């Protein structure tokens, strides 16, 4: 299963070992871990709640992984995204890509994250000293995703 949406934490080392186990063609593994920061937009963040769209979130992530596999020479990819209440320093998301060479592994990992941040139905709500607030989508994230399809850039 290349995509998991779960409340439980994950252990990156174990996930990487499982992803590449027994595959001697793998020469490169790239991994990204996203974490909860204790400050955002100038406010202290006490906790964060991640909401998702059960069914569609998994489907969207599987589509992004399939697109990455079609575009880059990678043999394996894994996405784990946590939902529910998280605290500063908690892990939010893990993306792992594995292939023969580092170039495609790095690129596929970044591609998956850029698309995840703009296409997968997940929403963050922060509890701050000034109350609760929904995190606003960032233009920079749209730009990051758009650079993978230059023909559609402005």
């Amino acid at each position, binding site marked *: 299963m290349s995509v998991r949406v779960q409340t439980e934490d994950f252990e990156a080392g174990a996930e990487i070992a499982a992803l590449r186990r027994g595959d001697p063609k793998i020469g490169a593994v790239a991994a990204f871990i996203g974490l909860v920061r204790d400050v955002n937009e100038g406010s202290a963040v006490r906790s964060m709640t991640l909401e998702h769209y059960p069914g*569609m979130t998994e489907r969207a992530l599987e589509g992004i992984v399939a697109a990455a596999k079609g575009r880059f020479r990678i043999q394996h990819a894994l996405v784990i995204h946590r939902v529910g209440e998280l605290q500063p320093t908690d892990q939010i998301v893990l993306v792992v890509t594995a292939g023969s060479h580092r170039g495609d592994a790095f690129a596929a990992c970044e591609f998956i994250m850029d698309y*995840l941040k703009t296409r*997968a*139905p*997940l929403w963050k*709500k922060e509890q701050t000293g000034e109350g609760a607030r929904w995190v606003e*989508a960032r233009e920079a994230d749209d730009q990051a995703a758009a650079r993978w399809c230059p023909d559609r850039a402005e």
Partner: protein
Amino acid sequence: MSVKLLYFASLREQVGSSGESLELPSGVASVAGLREHLVARGGVWQAALAGNRALRVAVNQDLAIASTAIKEGDEVAFFPPVTGG
């Protein structure tokens, strides 16, 4: 025709509902038409779904655009731009 509607995140809080089953009048057959139909409820619906609000829509769990057709039994979800990762 009847459709299942879902609302998520800040939009869910604004309209005070996570979803509903809705019987649509004949003539409402696209995402844009459905959005107008909901805006016509007025009040929080108008405020949350008005055309100047950046919203995403999914039909049967695939991202959709304003012209996407809606059919009997479809699941249509409205939500704000996503912020995961």
